[in-house]
């Protein structure tokens, strides 16, 4: 049986052979070594970059930090991003935080808080909702989805209500 095997070891082979062979051997060594190093670098580089935690540590989800304590004055509100949709965080005149979806149930415009009316108002067709998100006048057919609000330390955390 014929067996293919390394007839020369790369190390020992340098001593014998023609100069042309030596050049060829050297070239192969450089190519292999370089390729090995470069390809190793091209895995290690992304992996090292991957290991660095990104600046934004908030992953989002059903919970989001909508604002910081003190950011809102009583009887004002702000729009925050909740997933891919806007949410409305209201600090009522009574000092209570309330949060709800900011997408009008009529034609999906973004609603706003009216300090003068103490109501949530949609500018597109004059729909109004009360502070519990219920549609009280105008065209909106359904209430706004209400979210849970918790104050955790300095952060005002808004959470989607859990079903069951």
């Amino acid at each position: 049986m014929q067996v293919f095997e390394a007839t020369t070891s790369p190390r020992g082979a340098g001593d014998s052979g023609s100069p042309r062979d030596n050049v060829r051997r050297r070239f192969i060594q450089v190519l292999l070594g370089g390729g090995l190093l470069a390809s190793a670098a091209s895995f290690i580089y992304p992996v090292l970059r991957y290991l660095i935690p990104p600046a934004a540590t908030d992953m989002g989800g059903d919970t989001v930090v909508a604002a910081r304590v003190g950011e809102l004055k009583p009887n004002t509100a702000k729009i925050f991003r909740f997933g891919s949709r806007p949410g409305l965080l209201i600090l009522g005149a009574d000092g209570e935080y309330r949060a709800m979806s900011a997408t009008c149930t009529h034609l999906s415009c973004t609603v706003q808080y009216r300090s003068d009316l103490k109501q949530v108002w949609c500018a597109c067709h004059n729909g109004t909702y009360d502070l519990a998100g219920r549609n009280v006048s105008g065209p909106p057919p359904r209430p706004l989805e209400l979210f849970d609000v918790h104050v955790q330390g300095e952060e005002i955390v808004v959470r989607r209500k859990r079903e069951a």
Partner: protein
Amino acid sequence: MSAFALVKDWLDERFGWAELTKPLRKKTVPMHRLSYWYFLGGITLFLFVIQVCTGILLLLYYRPSANEAFESVQYITTQVQFGWLVRSIHSWSANLMILTAFAHMFSVLFLKAYRKPRELTWITGALLLFLAMGFGFSGYLLPWNTLAFFATKVGTEVAGQVPIVGQWIVIFLRGGEDVTGATLTRFFGFHVAVLPGITTLLLGVHILLVQRFGISVPPSVEEQWKRDPSAAREMKFFPNFALREMIAWYIALGVLGALAALSPWGLGAKADPFVPAPAGIKPEWYFLFMFQTLKLIPAKIWFIDGDLLGVLGFGLAGAVWVLLPFVEGLKWRLARVFVTGLGVFALAYIVSMTIYGYVAK
């Protein structure tokens, strides 16, 4: 003396390195026109190693809860540097691994490498393929997107068809009556702890057996070599075959990189148990042939429930498949033809059903 040689000597002195690696250095690989098929096992192993590495990397950021799973995967792909690459490679490599594992299995079948004394190698291999599919099934749910959610719902439902213990299996798999966050936690556990543990063990046995028995030569080539011993060729495993295997690995790596960069694995929409299932829910391609079969079976055959028949059928087929080497060992004239025929039929069935599953609405 080079540093490498120094380390080697140091090890040799203490552990008998030379002794330990002797079988590896003595190991040879038969060379013939079908030798190319020998690479498949190695490629599958390589892809498995990639899975382990990228999987560990993903674990750094992934959060296994229904509330955060989707967001954490989104975070990995958008916020973490090269996170998209790691995740895409993990997903693509998983699919390629199952593909090469299937190819490896069929090549072993058609090259008749499962014959005595290699029955156990075949059995561990077949079990490893099932485990790989288990990895695929459990991993598919982890991003917690709509498609995965419903595919898991359908997939686990099938287990409920198993007689007597069916309902128990479903509850065991789902961690409750329905697919919920509890299922996600469970699948995560299976995916990163249970399955890797069993797989590593079986893989060790599988590779050890391959080393023990050496590489099988297909009967046709063997006969030819018997007639003309001068035609027999062998190659040293190390370094000749290993270098060639390395070429295959590098090619696999290039393919993976290209797939990940040019066609990053999508994420879909977050699973919402309260929305109706989207139309055309299909499992991953490697389950499609089973899925399609179950769809085609009539609701009732005679008095037996169609789905039950399908599940039992696949269970039986899987068992026969695992025990295939023993069929050939039977004192039966047609045993060899039967096994090959079964292999051809299985391949044709899987391929055609998979294509049908893709085309069918």
